[in-house]
């Protein structure tokens, strides 16, 4: 155990002992360090003005990802490399290629969002030098700009990619040295205090089990994409807080199942979804913005219990199970049974989600839909996961789960019944579309009215059928540029 938080901030090592559970990285940067290039626009991880790169050592080596400093807790940066806009520099100490391209293409107007946009584009430039417009727009899902209309920013990103220079980049050149420094910081539990507040960063999953056994009422913080708002928006006390975002990263694919560590982020899961559930990739890339996908974890999206979490409808449709652990005792629960009621899950105090087990669909037809006011980085009005088995023209099994339609993510039992055993034909989906009205009594709020939610839920059965029956006809909107 160590009472010291250690991380790298740009080119300096930071060592802190007085750190509160609720201290954010952004306040540390702006108030303590006067690094004012990183801006606060919303303090809820939605505008991206506070984007910084977070470097961390993974099995694949040191990776740098854009994250939102506003909802990132300082304590969770232990053993990481925080890179702010002040650290960017070109090979000659001048502008970095991203910055130069932004200037040349008139990519800034008021300039307030610009440092955050530069950092997101830097993260993309580093990892995908050949990014096209679609990838650039994906990288900017978590960055709002109110002035430019984005056109010159996208052009700047394309130009910076063409300009190259990744191998000479400072972060690439210093990769080995930084990795070594970060590794040296890790391996021990960290316990921090500030006044009455306590923050604990367990060394590994076993240590987490021990920490939770001692502190069953502690706030468990993974990616902080929700808990961050408890603090920044609602000023809630989260102490003692246990930070687990760096834990349970393991991934195994065996016996037709993906066994995902609960700490795997949405971003880390992207290659698995792309390979094993390609029909859901588009859906997966609409979870949050890039920064949120780099922070939020699949396990916490489940454990959080929100009725509008984006992964449960898809994962329930796929028949996912979760492994819950308390101390050394583990139990497996079907995901659909985990959600009991609004704000109530099948999780005991001190228990945590350790794994998510996702059966890889074999010969099943899978689809995932998300309806929101804005396509990207919006909270779901209605989400749906479909997984159907069809044999000899008959639907043998239908698993259809919805989010946003009830107090919990939930299967559409009557609609499923209307499909099961029926011909794989338009009439069956019409029947399901009618039946789903009896499955749910959705609420009206600012995201959508009950009437709209019900209408859309029904129409998603029709869309699913159209996609299957008329693959040559355009039945879905095309968003990608150049398609």
């Amino acid at each position, binding site marked *: 155990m160590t009472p010291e938080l250690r991380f790298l901030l740009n080119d300096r090592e930071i060592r802190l002992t007085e750190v509160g559970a609720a201290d954010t990285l952004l306040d540390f940067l702006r108030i303590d360090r006067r690094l004012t290039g990183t801006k606060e*626009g919303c*303090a809820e991880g939605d505008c991206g003005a506070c984007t910084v790169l977070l470097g961390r050592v993974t099995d694949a080596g040191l990776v740098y990802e854009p994250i939102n400093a506003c909802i990132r807790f300082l304590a969770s940066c232990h053993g990481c490399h925080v890179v702010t806009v002040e650290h960017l520099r070109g090979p000659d100490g001048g502008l970095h290629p991203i910055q130069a391209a932004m200037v040349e293409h008139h990519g800034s107007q008021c*300039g307030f969002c610009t440092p955050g946009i530069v950092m997101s584009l830097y993260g993309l430039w580093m990892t995908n030098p050949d990014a096209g417009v679609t990838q650039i727009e994906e990288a900017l899902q978590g960055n709002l700009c109110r002035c430019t209309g*984005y056109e010159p920013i996208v052009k700047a990103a394309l130009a910076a990619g063409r300009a190259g220079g990744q191998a000479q980049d400072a972060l690439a050149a210093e990769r080995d040295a930084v990795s070594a420094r970060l590794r040296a910081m890790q391996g021990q539990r960290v316990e921090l205090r500030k006044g009455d507040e306590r923050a604990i960063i367990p060394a590994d999953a076993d240590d987490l089990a021990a920490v939770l056994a001692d502190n069953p009422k502690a706030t468990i913080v993974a990616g902080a994409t929700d808990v961050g708002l408890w603090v920044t928006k609602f000023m809630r006390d989260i102490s003692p807080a246990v930070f687990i975002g760096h834990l349970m990263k393991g991934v195994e694919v065996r016996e037709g199942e993906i066994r995902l560590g609960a700490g795997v982020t949405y971003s880390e899961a992207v290659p698995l979804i792309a390979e094993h559930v390609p029909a859901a990739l588009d859906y997966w890339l609409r979870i949050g913005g890039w920064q949120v996908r780099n922070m939020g974890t699949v396990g916490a999206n489940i454990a959080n219990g929100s009725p509008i979490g984006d992964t449960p409808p898809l994962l329930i449709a796929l028949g996912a199970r979760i492994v819950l652990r308390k101390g050394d005792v583990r139990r497996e629960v079907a995901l659909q049974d985990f959600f009991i009621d609004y704000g109530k899950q099948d999780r005991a105090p001190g228990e945590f989600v350790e794994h998510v087990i996702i059966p890889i669909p074999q010969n099943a037809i899978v689809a995932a839909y998300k309806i929101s006011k804005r396509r990207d980085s919006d909270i779901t009005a209605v989400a749906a996961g479909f997984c159907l088995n069809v044999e000899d023209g008959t639907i043998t099994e239908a698993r259809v789960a919805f989010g946003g339609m009830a107090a919990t993510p939930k299967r559409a039992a009557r609609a499923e019944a209307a499909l099961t055993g029926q011909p794989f034909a338009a009439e069956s989906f019409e029947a399901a579309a009618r039946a789903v009205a009896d499955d749910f009594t959705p609420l009206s709020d600012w995201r959508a009215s009950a009437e709209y939610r019900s209408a859309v839920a029904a*129409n998603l059965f029709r869309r699913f059928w159209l996609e299957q029956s008329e693959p040559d006809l355009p039945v879905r909107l095309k968003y990608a540029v150049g398609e």
Partner: protein
Amino acid sequence: MKDETIIRGVAHSDTIHDSAIKHVTGRAEYTDDLAEPSGLIHAYLGLSQCAHGRITGMDFTDTLAQPGVLGVLTAEDLPGVNDVSPTGKHDEPVFAEGEVHFWGQPVFAVIAETRDQARRGAHKAKISYDALPHALDPIAAREAGHGYVTEPLTLRRGDAASAMDKAPHRIKRRFEIGGQDHFYLEGQIAMAVPGEDEDVLINVSTQHPTEVQHMVAHVLGVASHSVVVNVRRMGGGFGGKETQMNLFACVAAVAAKRWNRAVKIRPDRDDDMTATGKRHDFVVDYEVGFDNDGRILAVSGDWYARCGFSSDLSGPVTDRALFHADNAYFYPDVELRSHPMRTNTVSNTAFRGFGGPQGVIVAERIVEEIGYALGRDPLEIRKLNLYQNGQLTPYHQEVEDQILPRIFEELEESSEYNARRQDVLDWNAKGGTIRKGIALTPVKFGISFTATWYNQAGSLIHIYSDGSIALNHGGTEMGQGLNTKVAQVVAEAFQCDIGRIKITRTTTEKVPNTSATAASSGTDLNGMAALDAAEQIKARLIDFVAERWQAPRDEVKFVPGHIRAGDHEIPFDEVIKAAYMARIHLSAAGFYKTPKIHWDRATGRGRPFYYYAYGAAVAEVSVDTLTGEYVIDRADVLHDVGRSLNPAIDRGQVEGAFVQGTGWLTCEELWWDDKGRLRTHAPSTYKIPLASDKPRVFNVKLADWAENAERTIKRSKAVGEPPFMLGISVFEAINMAVASVAGYREPARLDAPATPERVLMAVNRLKG
């Protein structure tokens, strides 16, 4: 400085924004980034939690017990008047007194050592209310007998009622148009530093430093000369910092004087969006009479606006809605009435277009109605009704500079409008679930403040003895590139490199009595004022050079980096040094007032606008008729900025305005619950466009042949607001895609914004 004969940054060049390098490196300082004076403390507002009610008690016991809290300010703690009404109506208190009029109204402020402590303190206060009935929208307000927040306006020409009676066709409908939050990325913020005597210095994110100066003086009860207001730049304004920052500046100033320490105030985004005004929502009842050819004969309409609890700028905003209710079309007989309704919501305010968009969109709806009624492309109806020079607007201004026919012609050709419209019709005829729409819509936008006295500006130029130039003017930089464009004007005047010119922060100490940087007028006014100052210094230099280098006065010319006097070519630095030694005055204050304009509100007649800016856009969309989702497949824009001072910056304004305009009409929705709480008050719930929402193909061109017919700065035209309204093309294209499900028998008549929900509901209604 070395001699340069190639000079950068003169007029009409693609000069980069003067802060671009600072923007991308994070070194551009916004108000929250300024070095903080030692001992700085923080203020945080406490907001009402009742849409309308009498305050029955205020208990600050828990607030004052909070660590770090120094005290609380309420209405009775203000040394001067409790009012920040920008129009002098005395209807907008800093802190509510006795009664609250909307959910989120500032009631008090907590002062503490840290922002976090002040904020926590504010949330610990217990304010109790006796609730009173509330009306949230303009129709409910009308039914509740709420009355107006400011005087309504009627524009009338001819006899609309009898022309309507005689018209072969008449259509009468209602159109509901939503508001819009500015969503400037940098929220409201002010930092006040107390000085000796009654002095206070305010750093604030504002479009209107002079008004902040006046408001702070009133609230402190001191003279304006005691208050200095500085703004280097804003992280976006869009109208949201024309009046809305007054309150924050006043609270900071009062606290600074009371505690004799520097005070910063910065609300959280939720409080910012809850407590500050937005674009006005409108309910419009319109009626049009037209003939068999589609020619408009008569228009009448009533514009009911959700103004909120106080007048703020609702008078001029609702006026401008009427001024633009014709958009680009001649209405032979017309009567337009505004109804600025008092509602129990935040007081709505300026927002890019300033009511104009809510007028223009109704004109476009009227055209759509006629097109659908007659089974014709609305574009034909547009062309038929476009103003011809010499025709009068509903406010009796003669249109003299019409260029839309040429813009239409070029845009139709470059966008291949006709072929693509046929493709859209063919596509929809196949009857699939994805439907398409296409629309070409124009804008004609009047440039000038309708408050005629606002159309003035000042500037101050110093040339120091080393030849460096300090430039100051009354406009503020909010990202629009104003400082760059004004510096280009000065670089052009002196024929010097723009690097020689330092654009300093806007401050009431240098240029007094300035107008808001608003109404798209920043460059028109301040560019001219800067040119006036430059010309004064130039005249003195020419006299001096003519004498010193023995050349006739008319042979002294400013050439790149030099001044030529007959056969001599003397470097600029050298001339300046010599002029200083010869005791030539190297500083000048410039001034400009817009000529020709006048406006008599009582009679509804005049020439409120110096000129018009024009533009048009073609948008094509695809709509999913199963979910109501849509995508903007392509947009082509051709816009008139006269002879552009900076084509790169102007194109940026056009692109940004277009996307902001589409946001207003698509994904941006303000939603109040029945208690009067705004529930879309942060980017998690209020969705402005993202990169992936902009048109998939986006062709934006400036009409490079255009030139302002009036003698504006270098014959350029204002650009900030006009292209905002080109987003209406997207809205109409969505309407067309929806109308296709019923064979275009009637227009879709979507209310705005056309969220996926509204689109799907309209599809289902039309399908029957």
